[in-house]
């Protein structure tokens, strides 16, 4: 049994663990925060989870890499939108981290760091799930 088969067997479990770790880190920041975290700070994690769900809805065998035909442009547009949503959520969490570190009345820096870690872990879990299931 080689490494790729092990990855295909245990990859979805690892993806679930990384996804759970991301959201639990964010819950830790919300629980331990002295200031009430506004709903705007929840949005990067929600959009990152949505982006991870988007690009795992695609079947790999439907992606067409032919240079001659038109190909599945709707599928590629869907993947492009998923990538844009993930990138914007990551950039948004980084922006909120900078805001939390500069503003005194905002939540603490750990809330911003946890937001960035949440987006990173959620997107990594999407990538792990994408690379591990063989279809």
């Amino acid at each position, binding site marked *: 049994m080689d490494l790729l*088969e092990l990855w*295909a*067997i*245990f990859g*979805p*479990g*690892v*993806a*679930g*663990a*990384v*996804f*759970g*770790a991301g959201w*639990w880190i964010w*819950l*830790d920041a919300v*629980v*331990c925060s002295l200031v009430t975290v506004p709903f705007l700070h929840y949005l990067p994690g929600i959009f990152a989870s949505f982006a991870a769900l988007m690009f795992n809805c695609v079947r790999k065998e439907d992606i067409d890499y032919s240079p001659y035909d038109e190909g599945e442009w709707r599928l590629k547009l869907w993947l492009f939108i998923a990538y844009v949503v993930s990138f914007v959520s990551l950039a948004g969490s980084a922006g909120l981290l900078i805001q939390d570190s500069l503003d005194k009345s905002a939540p603490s820096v750990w809330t911003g760091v946890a937001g960035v870690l949440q987006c990173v872990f959620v997107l990594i879990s999407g990538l792990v*799930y994408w690379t*591990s*299931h*063989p*279809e």
Partner: protein
Amino acid sequence: MLSWQKKFAAYLELEMAELPGYFRYCLNTGKLVLLGILVSGGVVLQILACALYNNWWPMLTAITYVLLPMPLLFLVGSGRSSLFSESDSSWVNATKFLTGASAVGSIAIPAILKHSGVIGWGAFAMELSSFFVFVFAILCYIRINDEDDYSSL
């Protein structure tokens, strides 16, 4: 000397091959006793983490212990081969995903309670010990179910 060792090895092999069926059944019963001891140890550690400090917030972890086997029970059959094999089914992959997420919750809830100051280091250590004892019991259970029960009698 060498012929004597060969004779003794042949004698041992004959004796092991003709082990009675009820003796092997007793060995399987011993494995079930070990499983019972492990699960009881996990439950005792869980309750000790709450009762010693008179702080019942760590009992939230019991929710994830109930949630942990639910995807396996509902979506995947009882066979081992569907869990530890490569599968094309999306349901099996979703089951593994949910199991991984629930397992992380069992570690994350004591960690968040410790970080927010609700529980101390002693309760946190007991919670983690309880989780690893349960995981070890589950792995032993999966290992025991691999063996063929029809060869025992």
